[in-house]
C-alpha cells in the first residue's frame, strides 16, 4: 500500500467540502448509481455544485434526517449508492435507528456522512458538537466508520466508500485542514497509515488530531524521544495488526481523537491491547463531557486536544513503561 506523507504540513488551501463535492461529481459522472441526499444542509456540505450537475440524482429532503436515511435505504435497495449528509450529531443521534435497521441491518449500501466532527462544530456549540457519533456508529455491527483528515484522504476515502459495499459512517471536517498526504496515497479498509516511524512510543491519532500528533512527534524528538505516528483513519474495522505491532515494537501508546475517549479511538485501541498485549496507554480526547460554544482554538485548549497534551501524555506513558 502506497502512503506518501507530505514533508511539511501547512494549512491546505482547499476546503475539504470542496474536495468532497468534486469527488462526488467525478464519481457520479462515471457511475449513474451515485446519488446525494441532504437534510437542508447542502450549503454547509458544499454539495450544491453536485445538485447543479445532477439535479435528478439529488434529494434535498428538508429538515428530515430520519426520513433522509430511510429514503437512502430505499434507493440502496434498488441498486443506487446514496451519500447522505447532515451534521454528525443529527446523523448519529437523530437517525441512529434508521441507520441501524433500514441501512445496516438490512445490508444496504448507504454512505452516511456526518460533518463538523467534535470541536469543529465551533460556534454551533454543544448541541451540535458530536463527541459520541463514532461511538454510536461503531456499535452497529458491520458498519465501517472512518474519519479522513485532509483533502487527499477525503477524496480517497470517499472513493473507497463508493467502491466498498456496505453502510459507512464518514466523519467529515468541512473546512481547510493541514496537508498530511500527497497525491498517490492509497487507502484500504482497516489499514492504518504509518506517518512517522519511531521506537519509544506510538501516537495513534484520527481526524483533527493527526496533524497535532505529527507536531507532538517533532517536539518529542527534541527531547530525544522517538515517537511513531499512525493515522487510524478507519476506526472500524480497526487495524489491530498495526496496534499490536506498535505495542510490541514501542511498548507504549497514546491515542488522540476529537471525540469522547469512551467508545472512541481510545476505547477501541485499549480493548485490543487488553485482550492481546497489555501495554501502558494514555488517551488524549474528550473526557466524557458535553461540548460548548467557542472557536476551534479555544475549544482545542478547553478539551486539551492539542500537540502539547499529546506530548504530556507521551511523557506520562513513557514513565509507566
Amino acid at each position, binding site marked *: 500500500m502506497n502512503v506518501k506523507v507530505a514533508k511539511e504540513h501547512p494549512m491546505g488551501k482547499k476546503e475539504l467540502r470542496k474536495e468532497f463535492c468534486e469527488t462526488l461529481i467525478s464519481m457520479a459522472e462515471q457511475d449513474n448509481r451515485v*446519488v446525494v441526499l441532504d437534510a437542508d444542509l447542502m450549503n454547509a456540505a458544499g454539495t450544491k455544485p453536485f445538485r447543479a450537475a445532477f439535479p*435528478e*440524482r439529488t*434529494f434535498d*429532503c*428538508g429538515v*428530515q434526517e*430520519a*426520513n*433522509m*436515511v*430511510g*429514503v*437512502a*435505504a*430505499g*434507493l*440502496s*435497495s*434498488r*441498486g*443506487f449508492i*446514496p451519500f447522505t449528509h447532515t451534521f454528525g450529531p443529527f446523523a448519529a443521534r437523530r437517525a441512529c*435507528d*434508521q441507520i*441501524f*435497521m*433500514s441501512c445496516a*441491518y*438490512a*445490508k444496504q449500501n448507504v454512505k452516511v456522512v456526518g460533518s463538523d466532527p467534535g470541536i469543529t462544530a465551533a460556534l454551533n456549540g454543544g448541541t451540535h458538537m458530536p463527541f459520541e457519533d463514532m461511538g454510536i456508529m461503531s456499535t452497529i455491527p458491520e458498519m465501517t466508520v472512518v474519519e479522513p483528515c485532509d483533502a487527499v484522504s477525503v477524496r480517497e476515502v470517499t472513493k473507497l466508500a463508493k467502491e466498498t459495499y456496505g453502510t459507512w459512517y464518514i466523519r467529515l471536517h468541512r473546512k481547510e485542514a493541514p496537508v498530511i498526504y500527497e497525491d498517490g496515497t492509497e487507502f484500504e479498509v482497516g489499514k492504518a497509515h504509518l506517518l512517522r516511524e519511531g521506537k519509544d512510543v506510538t501516537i495513534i491519532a484520527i481526524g483533527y488530531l493527526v496533524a497535532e500528533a505529527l507536531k507532538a512527534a517533532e517536539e518529542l524528538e527534541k527531547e530525544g524521544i522517538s515517537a511513531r505516528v499512525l493515522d487510524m483513519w478507519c476506526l472500524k474495522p480497526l487495524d489491530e495488526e498495526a496496534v499490536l505491532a506498535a505495542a510490541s515494537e514501542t511498548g507504549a501508546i497514546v491515542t488522540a481523537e476529537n471525540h469522547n475517549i469512551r467508545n472512541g479511538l481510545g476505547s477501541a485501541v485499549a480493548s485490543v491491547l487488553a485482550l492481546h498485549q497489555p501495554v501502558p496507554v494514555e488517551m488524549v480526547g474528550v473526557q466524557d463531557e458535553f461540548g460548548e460554544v467557542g472557536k476551534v482554538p479555544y475549544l482545542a485548549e478547553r478539551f486539551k486536544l492539542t500537540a502539547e497534551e499529546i506530548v504530556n501524555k507521551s511523557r506520562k506513558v513513557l514513565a509507566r513503561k
Partner: protein
Amino acid sequence: MQNVNEVKRFAVEIRKETIKCIGKLGVGHIGGALSIVDLLAVLYSGEMNIDPADPKKDDRDMLVVSKGHSGPAVYATLALKGYFPIEMLETLNQPHTNLPSHCDMNRTPGIDMTTGSLGQGSSSAMGIACANRLKGYDNYTYLILGDGEIEEGQVWEAAIFANAKKLTKVIAFVDYNKCQIDDYVQDLCALGDIAKKFESFGWYAQNVEDGNDVEQIAAAIANAKAQNERPSVIVLNTVKGKGYSKIEGTLGSHNMPVDSSMVEEALAELDKQAQEIGE
C-alpha cells in the same frame, strides 16, 4: 383483479396458513396479520405486477410492509403464490428460519424491504419510488402502515417528502383496525381524521368503509391509479384478528398464545367461511 370469489377464497387460504404457522410456534402477532389479509389477497391477485418465478424482476411493483410484525400473513401469501414451498411456513421464528417475526428482505423471497422498527418503511418506500423513477419505470410502490404506527413522526416526514418530490406512483394503506398494544387507538393516542391529515399533506386520500372487503379495496386502488397527480393513501377500516371471531377486535390479539385447539377452531370457522363464498 381476478374473480371476486377467487380473491375471497385466496384470503381465506392466507388466513388459514397464517394461523397454522403461528399456531405451530404457539405464539405470534396474529391480530394485525389477519387484519391486512384481504388487502394482501387483492394485491397478490393481479393488482401487483410481479412474477413469483422471478422475485427480483427489476421493474416489478414493490411492497413495503412497514408494520413488519404482520410478516406471517405476508409469508402465507407469498408461499401460496409459489415464492417458496408452503412447508417453509412451519419454520416461522424457529432457529435459522428465513421467516422471522418481522419482514427481512435478505431472508425471504418476495420481501422487498426489511421492516420492524415502526415508521421506517414509510421512508424506504419513498426511496424505492425515487429509485424506480430514476430507472425510468412507471411501476407502483405499495406501502402498508399500521394505525398505531402512524403515531411515529417519521411517517409524516415521509408524507411531506412524497408530496414535495411528487411521488405519484406510491399507494399507501393504513390498516385502521383501531387497536394498538396498550389500548384502543382512540383512547391512547387518537388519530383524528387520518385521510384528512394525509390530504393536508398533499396526498390523494380515500376511506374504505370495510377494509376487509376485497371489492371495496380493489375499487379504491383503481381510483388511486386513475389519478396521477399525487401520492395516494387508502385508509382501510379493518378489524384486528379478522376471520377468527374469538379474537376479532380484541387488544390481546396483537401478540398472543395460539394453541392447537385455537388453530382447529379457527380453521373450522375459516372452512365455513370458504363454503359460504359463491362460485
